[in-house]
C-alpha cells in the first residue's frame, strides 16, 4: 500500500519526557483509553453478531492511525458494521460508525454535497469523494483509506499543505491590464469563452487527481493536474488578454510543469467534478508550442 505514515520526529522526545513523570491527567487518559477500547470491542462484537443475522449491514474496513495514541501508532484497520439504508454513501457510513461506535474515528467532511472537497479518500483502491460514493455500488467489505501519496495525519486525514502550495504556485488569480472605462461596467465575455473555461472553474480542490497521479508521486515539485487546471482556467479566459496569457504559459512550461504529464488519464478518471484534466494539460502543451513558434 502506498499510504505513507510520517516517520517519528523530535516531537516524540517531548512525549518521552512526559512519560517519565506521569501526571494525574496522563493516568486518567490512560485509563480512559483502556476503557474506551473495551467498550469499542464490546460494541463491535455485538454488531458483528447482528451482522451475521442480518444481510442489510455494510462492512467497512477503515484505516486507523494516530501518532500519539497507544495502539494506533502502528497503522491498522478497524472493522465497522453499519445498518444499510437506501441511498447511503460512504460518508454516511463513516459518520454512523463515528457517532455510534467510536467517536475518535477521524475524517474531514463538511458540506455533504460534493462542493467543499473535504472528503476525498481511497475507497476500494480508488480516489473518491466519500459523500458522493454510493455504498450500493461498492464491493464489500469496503476498504477506506487516506489518499495515497500524501502524509497521513490521523486516520483518514492527510496533510494537504503540499497540495495547497502547488495550487498557489501558478498565480491563481485573475489578472488584466485594462478594465472598461465606465463606472459599474463589466468586462465582456462571450458565451463561448465562458463555456470553454466552465469545466475548469468547477475544481473543488479535493486533491483526488494529485493523489492518483504517478508523476506527482515521483516528482514532488510537479505542479500536478489541479494546479495546471487552475492555470488553464485563467490562460483560456479571454478577459485576461494576450500578454498575461504569455506569462501564464511561461509558468506552466517550467521544468516541473505541463511537460511532465505523460497522459495516463488517471486524474481525469478520478475527478469527482468530471473535469477533463488531461485534455486541459494537453491543450496547454499545444498552446505553449504555438507560442514558442511565434517567437522564432
Amino acid at each position, binding site marked *: 500500500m502506498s499510504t505513507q505514515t510520517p516517520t517519528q520526529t523530535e516531537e516524540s522526545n517531548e512525549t518521552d519526557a512526559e512519560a517519565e513523570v506521569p501526571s494525574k*491527567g496522563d493516568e*486518567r*487518559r490512560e485509563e*480512559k*483509553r483502556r*476503557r474506551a477500547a473495551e467498550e469499542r470491542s464490546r460494541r463491535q462484537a455485538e454488531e458483528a453478531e447482528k451482522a451475521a443475522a442480518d444481510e442489510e449491514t455494510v462492512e467497512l474496513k477503515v484505516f486507523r492511525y*494516530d*501518532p*500519539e*495514541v497507544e495502539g494506533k501508532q502502528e497503522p491498522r484497520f478497524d472493522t465497522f458494521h453499519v445498518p444499510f439504508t*437506501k*441511498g447511503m454513501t460512504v460518508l454516511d457510513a463513516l459518520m454512523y460508525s463515528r*457517532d455510534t461506535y467510536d*467517536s*475518535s474515528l*477521524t*475524517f*474531514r*467532511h*463538511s*458540506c*455533504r*454535497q*460534493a*462542493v*467543499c*472537497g*473535504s472528503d476525498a479518500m481511497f475507497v476500494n483502491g480508488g480516489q473518491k469523494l466519500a459523500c*458522493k460514493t454510493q455504498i450500493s455500488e461498492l464491493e464489500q467489505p469496503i476498504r477506506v483509506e487516506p489518499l495515497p501519496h500524501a502524509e497521513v*495525519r*490521523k*486516520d483518514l*486525514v492527510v496533510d*494537504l499543505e503540499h497540495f*495547497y502550495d502547488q495550487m*498557489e504556485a501558478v*498565480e*491563481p*488569480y*485573475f489578472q488584466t491590464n485594462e*478594465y472598461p472605462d465606465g463606472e*459599474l*461596467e*463589466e*468586462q*465582456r*465575455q*462571450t*458565451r463561448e469563452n*465562458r463555456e470553454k*473555461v*466552465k469545466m475548469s*472553474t*468547477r475544481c*473543488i*480542490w479535493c486533491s483526488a487527481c494529485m493523489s492518483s497521479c504517478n508523476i506527482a508521486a515521483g516528482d514532488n515539485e510537479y505542479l500536478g493536474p489541479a494546479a495546471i487546471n487552475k492555470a488553464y482556467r*485563467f490562460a483560456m*479566459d479571454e*478577459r*485576461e488578454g494576450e500578454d498575461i496569457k504569455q506569462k501564464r504559459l511561461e509558468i506552466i512550461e517550467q521544468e516541473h510543469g505541463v511537460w511532465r504529464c505523460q497522459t495516463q488519464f488517471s486524474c481525469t478518471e478520478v475527478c469527482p467534478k468530471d473535469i477533463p484534466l488531461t485534455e486541459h494539460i494537453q491543450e496547454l502543451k499545444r498552446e505553449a508550442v504555438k507560442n514558442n513558434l511565434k517567437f522564432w
Partner: protein
Amino acid sequence: MHEHDVIVVGAGGAGLRAAIAAQEAGADVAIVSKLHPVRSHTGAAEGGINAALRDADSWEDHAYDTMKGSDYLGDAPAVEALCQESPEEVIQLEHWGMPFSREEDGRVSQRPFGGLSFPRTTYAGAETGHQMLHTMYEQVVKRGITVYDEWHVMELAVTDEDDPADRTCHGVVAYDIQSGEVSGFRAEDGVILATGGMGQVFDHTTNAVANTGDGVAMAYRAGVPMEDMEFIQFHPTTLPSTGVLISEGVRGEGGILYNEEGERFMFEHGYANNDGELASRDVVSRAELTEVNEGRGIEDEYVHLDMRHLGEERILDRLENILHLAEDFEGADGLTEPMPVKPGQHYAMGGIETNEFGETVIGGLYAAGECACASVHGANRLGGNALPELAVFGKRAGRHAAGEEMGEAEITTGKEGDWDPADYEFEVEVGEVGGRGSAAADGGAVATDPDGVLEAEVERAEARVEELLSREGRNHAEIRSTVQQTMTANVNVFREEGRLEETLGDLREARQAYKDVAVSDPSRTFNTDLIHTMETRNILDIAEALTMGALAREEFRGAHWRKEHQERKDENWLKHTLVSWNDGKPELWYKPTILEGENKTYEPKSRSY
C-alpha cells in the same frame, strides 16, 4: 500568541470580503477558520446575487422588494445599504474574474427570482456560491493575507464590565486542530465574526456539518444580544433524503411544483395566485407542507419539482449542477422525471445584533454575513439576497474595523435607544444549568484589564480542553441529535405553543446532560471529537434562544407561523426580538424596527404574491 490589527473569524464570503477590505484600508489582517477557506459553505450557494445593474431597474425597487419580503421587519438603513452597494460588489467580483453566466452581448446575465419585481439575479450557472467563494479566495492569495486554517475559535477575549456597552474585545482564543495547541490571537483594532449559518441546530438542513453557529454563540456569551432568532428560513426545495438544496433558480427558469394528484397547487389551491412557484420562500414552504398534511403529498412526505419542459439545452446551460445533485443525492434524473423536494432548514435571518457597519454593542467586535443581523432580511430573506449581503457587509465591517471613517450609524445596538422588556413567562427554566463558576460554564468574560483578558481567556480555554480530554462522561453526539430532532419536530415551519414549550423542556434536559459531556478520543492530533463537543455547546445556546423567541412572538410574520396567532400584528410587533445572555440568565427584550429610509418610509402593506 499571534498579533494582528484585525482578526476575521471564518473564511466564507463575508470573512474573505472583510479581510480584503480591511487590508485595503491599511490593516494587518489575519483570517482564523476551522476550515480551509475553499471548504466554506458559501461554496454551496447555488442561485445567485441580486443587484440592480440595469437602467430599467433601481436600487429603490430592490429595497422595496427586500422590505416587503422581510415582512417589514428589516431595518431600512441596512436594507438600503445592501441594495445601493450590491451593484458595485457584483461588478467588483466580475473584475476579479468571477465566471458569471453571460448574455449574447457578453454582459452578465440576470434571471427572475422569488419575490423580485425585476429579473435582477446575477448568477454563474447553479453554482454561483462556489464561483464567488473561489474568486474571493483567489484575491486573498493574491494579496498574501495570512490565513490560519483548521484553527477552531473557542471564545472571544472580552472584558467583563457590567454593561455590555462598556466591554471591549481584544482578540480570540483558538485551538489548532492539527496540533492541539491553544493560542491567543490579539486584535489591536477589531475582531470580525463571519462564521456563517447555524443549520446544525436542525435535523434536516441544507447547511454543512460545520455550520454550528459558533460566532453567534460566542458573541452571545460575551454579552452581545442575539436578534430575531425565531426567524428561520425553510427552503421549499431540498432533497428529502439528505437536505441537499435544489436552487430556486429552477423555479426562476420556469420549474413547476406538483402534488400527488398532479395539481399545480401553488395556483390550483390558491397559495399565490399571481406569482405561483415564485412566491416568497416562506409562502411556498408552507404551501408544500399543507399539501402533505392534507394528504396530497407523495409518499406523505414531499412534492414534485418538474423542469423537464425547459428542455435539455436550457437546463444544461443554466442549471446543470442541479442535474448532478438530483442524480448523486436522490437518484433522480431531472431531464426525464420530476424531482422530489420538501422544505428544509436553509438560512437564519437572525443572528448577532449589529448596526449597518457590522459593529456590535461590544467595542471592537464586529459581525457580518449570515451570523449577523443588521437586519437586512427581517422575517424572511429573499432568494439571491444572501450573497450580496456577504460582500456588502463583509466589506463594510472590514473597513470600519480597519479604522476607516464611515459616519454615524442609524441603527442602535444594545439598549442604547428605545427598548422594552418582554413580559413573557416561560414555563421552563432557561439559561446556564447550575449557574456559572466552573470552567465547564464555558462562557462570559473573565477580566476587565484589556491587556490581561486575552491571557486569562487562553488559560481558561486550555483548562477547558484538558478537562474535556481527561474526564469521563457522556458523548456529545447523542445530545446533539436530541436537540436537532426536537427542533425539527417542533420549531419547524408550523409552530404551536405547547410543542414549543415541550422543546424548551427537551433543551433543558439536553443542557443538563451536556454538563457531563466528555471527549473519549484522548489525542491532541486532529481531534474532531473535541471540536464537535465544543460545537454542541454552541448549538444548545442557539436552539434555546431561538425557541424562546418563537414562543414570545405571538403573531404570524414572514417565516414565523404560529397556530394560535394567525395574523401579522403590526401594532405590537413591528419590533425585533433580542435575547441577552446576562451571564447565564437569558433576558428577552425588544427594540423597534426602523422603517424610515433615505427618501421614504416603508409603510407595511399586506404581503401577497
